[in-house]
């Protein structure tokens, strides 16, 4: 399909979104990422029954943790699509990028020291 999506997105593959932990999301923001989004299978279609539902609960938890800390919860989102929906994947990537551009850079970035 040779679809284009924003180049600033780094994809981290996991066997199932159920593998994504609260700390993975939290640490990404702590280490200066402007936003993180989890893309899982459609609800009801999880091969492990409820991996994507657990991921959504964790994403919502992280959103509330970020609000507690003083950051925008919307820096973390969950999206669902099926593996055959390439155009939707690209559309979600653009949507998330626009969302983050509107929020501006992560204010924690200045504290991040890179080796």
């Amino acid at each position: 399909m040779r679809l284009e999506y924003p180049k600033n997105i780094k994809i981290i593959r996991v066997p199932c979104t159920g593998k994504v932990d609260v700390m993975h999301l939290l640490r990404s923001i702590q280490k200066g990422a402007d936003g993180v989004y989890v893309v899982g299978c459609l609800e009801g279609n999880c091969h492990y029954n409820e991996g994507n539902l657990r991921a959504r609960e964790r994403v919502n938890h992280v959103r509330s943790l970020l609000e507690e800390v003083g950051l925008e919860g919307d820096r973390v989102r969950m999206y669902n699509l099926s593996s055959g929906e390439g155009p939707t994947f690209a559309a979600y990537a653009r949507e998330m990028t626009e969302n983050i551009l509107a929020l501006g850079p992560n204010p924690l970035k200045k504290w991040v020291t890179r080796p």
Partner: protein
Amino acid sequence: MIVAKRKPFEEIKGLIKGYNKVLNVGCGTCVAVCLAGGEKEVAVLNAELDMARKLEESPIEVGALTVERQCDREYLEPLDAIVNDYEAILSMACGAGIQFVAERFPQTPVFPAVDTTFIGVNQGVGWYEERCRSCSSCVLGMTGGICPVTMCAKGLYNGPCGGTNKGNCEISKDQPCAWYLIYERLEKQGRLDSIMAFTPASKWENQVPRTVIQPGYEKSKADATP
């Protein structure tokens, strides 16, 4: 197990306001099982504190150490070597663990990061319900294994009261009447005579701090008493 809830973040942040180097000590037993104060919860809280303090332009260094049990001296030993590197300690253990840490390091301020809530059971992942008030005079043998002190709103030993209403308690239609449940279970077991036995009032020993010395272990207390 002892079930705890993490304190609201703002409260924890307020407790350690003004300290710039804090050690967060997790507990690997009850509070780890109930997902309130184990190794992972220490990591989450530390990440939150780190981010919040950086946003306030007042960064904090938060150390992390999760011990097997904070209510046991032998597991507190590893803290001895590092405690002086910190200005204060946050403890994610139950109230007993927090006090034992504070007792061991009387020079160091120790702050609670969780609210110890009850002795309960695990109904599902992350779902816990109270079952015991540790009243020190267990009547479960007479009540079909249902605790009236915990499950009855009035903690009645000889119930039900006049507020029982078609199986529910007068305080809420969602709250089952403990004595109704006790009656049903004893009836199924053919032990209804048990409900007729009069249980004298509790000595309410739980009004003062209690000590338990198991049979055969009297020596340790005797040795420690001057």
